[in-house]
């Protein structure tokens, strides 16, 4: 019997400060046993439990794309016991990863479709995985137009800035980067909240266009009407949720929204599915 509580041992290979306030760091992990990397095969949108012996576990979205081999990447906000401890760990330290967990963005359904990615703040991790996955030369032709609306409080709070600016230069992806406000005179991109920019820049709905939304509750709340006024139907709005989790395998009971468990039946739901639940998230 496979023990679903057993983490794969990993070594921290690289640590990068992700935002100017240093509250987020990106960790690159390498599996100690090569075969574990194959067992960990994931799809963009899934998460994993970062498992630090003696500290505990935290569920974090997988920020690396399945097309990136040899490592897995997670961007972690420092907020509680485990994440604070993790932020103080060093390259070379040994810990564990348990996963991949949960469902993923519906890649089969999205094939041949236009995709609008909408993200805010540090909820951009699985969206980064998705963009890298779609832009991979082997995959790009499977998708139609790709639009990305991504916003943060200020330029220095945007995740993966180097990649964002690279994607800006490409002609096979339409980037709409935005910040809430900035005093930087050289800022060349948008200023305004994500829902506003969605209203202005996101493509109008058609049956072949799907939106993937991931962000803080307040952003999701105001992005939904913006998408609806662009004509998106409830089954064209795909959201990724968060809830407090422990087991990640649908057993410990805390992350439910009605009969659905965010860890196992989610974290990805369509708005249509969510509207049938009590939405306790």
């Amino acid at each position, binding site marked *: 019997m496979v023990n679903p509580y057993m983490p794969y041992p990993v070594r921290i290979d690289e640590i990068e400060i992700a935002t100017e306030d240093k509250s987020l760091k990106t960790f690159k992990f390498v599996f100690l046993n090569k075969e574990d990397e194959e067992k960990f095969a994931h799809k963009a949108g899934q998460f994993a439990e970062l498992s630090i*012996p*003696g500290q*505990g576990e935290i569920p974090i979205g997988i920020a690396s794309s399945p097309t990136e081999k040899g490592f897995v990447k997670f961007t972690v906000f420092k907020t509680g016991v485990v994440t604070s401890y993790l932020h103080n760990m060093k390259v070379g330290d040994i810990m564990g990863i348990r996963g991949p967990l949960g469902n993923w963005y519906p890649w089969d359904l999205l094939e041949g479709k236009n995709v609008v990615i909408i993200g805010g703040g540090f909820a951009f991790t699985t969206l980064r995985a998705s963009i890298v996955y779609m832009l991979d030369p082997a995959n790009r032709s499977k998708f139609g137009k790709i639009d990305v609306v991504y916003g943060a409080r200020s330029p220095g709070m945007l995740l993966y800035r180097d990649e964002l600016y690279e994607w800006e230069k490409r002609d096979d992806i339409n980037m709409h980067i935005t910040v809430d406000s900035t005093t930087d005179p050289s800022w060349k991109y948008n200023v305004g909240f994500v829902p506003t920019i969605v209203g202005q820049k996101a493509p109008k709905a058609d049956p072949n266009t799907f939106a993937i939304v991931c962000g803080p509750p307040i952003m999701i709340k105001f992005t939904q009407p913006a998408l609806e006024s662009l004509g998106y139907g409830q089954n064209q709005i795909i959201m990724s949720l968060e809830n407090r989790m422990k*087991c990640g395998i649908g*057993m410990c*009971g805390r992350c*439910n929204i009605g*009969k659905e468990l965010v860890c196992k039946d989610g974290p990805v739901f369509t708005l249509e599915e969510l509207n049938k639940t009590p939405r306790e998230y």
Partner: protein
Amino acid sequence: MKVIKIDKKEWTGGIDKSREKYLLFGPVKDKDVTNKEHYIFKKLAAGEFPVMEGVDTVLSPKSVIFPQTEKILKSSLDQSQPDHHIMKRVENDYSSRAVIGIRSFDAKALTLVNLNFDTKDYQDPYWCDAYKATTFVGLAVNKPSDVDFSTSMGSGPFGEEGLDVLLVDNGEEFLAKVITDKGKTFLDAAGFNKTADESAVKKIEDLKAQAEKTIADKAKVGTDNLKNKTVLDLYEAPFWDDIAFSCINCGTCTFVCPTCWCFDIQDETKGKSCTRFKNWDSCMFPLFTLHGSGHNPRGVKTQRVRQRFMHKLKYFLDKYDKGTMCVGCGRCVQSCPVNIDIREVCNIMNNYEPKK
């Protein structure tokens, strides 16, 4: 179905004999923190016998399979060790064990909890190993308690679901209904092998009818309409504030409940080693769902009370189509310090018609 006759004079001898092959668990007298006597299910020491007088236990026997606190993983934190910070499974004892004197509703409850821990996608090895290693020797309830409403919840005083043997107290003897091969193996190990005569089956049916009537004579709990109501109609119903009004979120109902399975995972360190635990948790506690950001989707008492009843009486029913996640044992009714009564709540939910 085969029925074995066990003369009560031979009972303790047989139980002792079974210890050669089984670890035994059963209800025994204990004292609580206030020195008050009560009964609990625990592992029986040598020379200790289960109380077979049909006693009520404050806690259900779920802890035999799903301990309140259980070590699951361990690792060394000593950097000089080659395997430091690599978790390993804690080896527990999963040799054959038998729970003697478990009630029908508690055995049925374990089959419901099993749906959560033994799934198509994931199997909790700690639960599965313990559950599979256990033989359940039930004791039928001849005199149901005032709070027993098990017949309304798909179980009953003589229910057989989840049991391997059902013992029926018939004065000077136990009539043992053999339900599974596992049950037969246990009875053989105890040397109980006298086949009862034809009249035993009739006797069991009579006692069963009598016990069921005792429950039926009390208020009936309705569950027949729950399935056809929508989750959102029940969730948004106006009665939840009233139901939750007196609740103090103590969590007692969840701890005494034989079907509550929610748990927490916690790490502890001692010197240079660490252990990861599974501990019972409760949806009554605000921390159960508190996000790292401070946001709490069930931060208000009413939301938590509603979660408990909706999970038991609606979400579970919709998810598995195996009835309610309540077996009608009545423990939460008995132990609730503010007299919240799941029988009343169930009837309110079952009878609710949303305003159109």
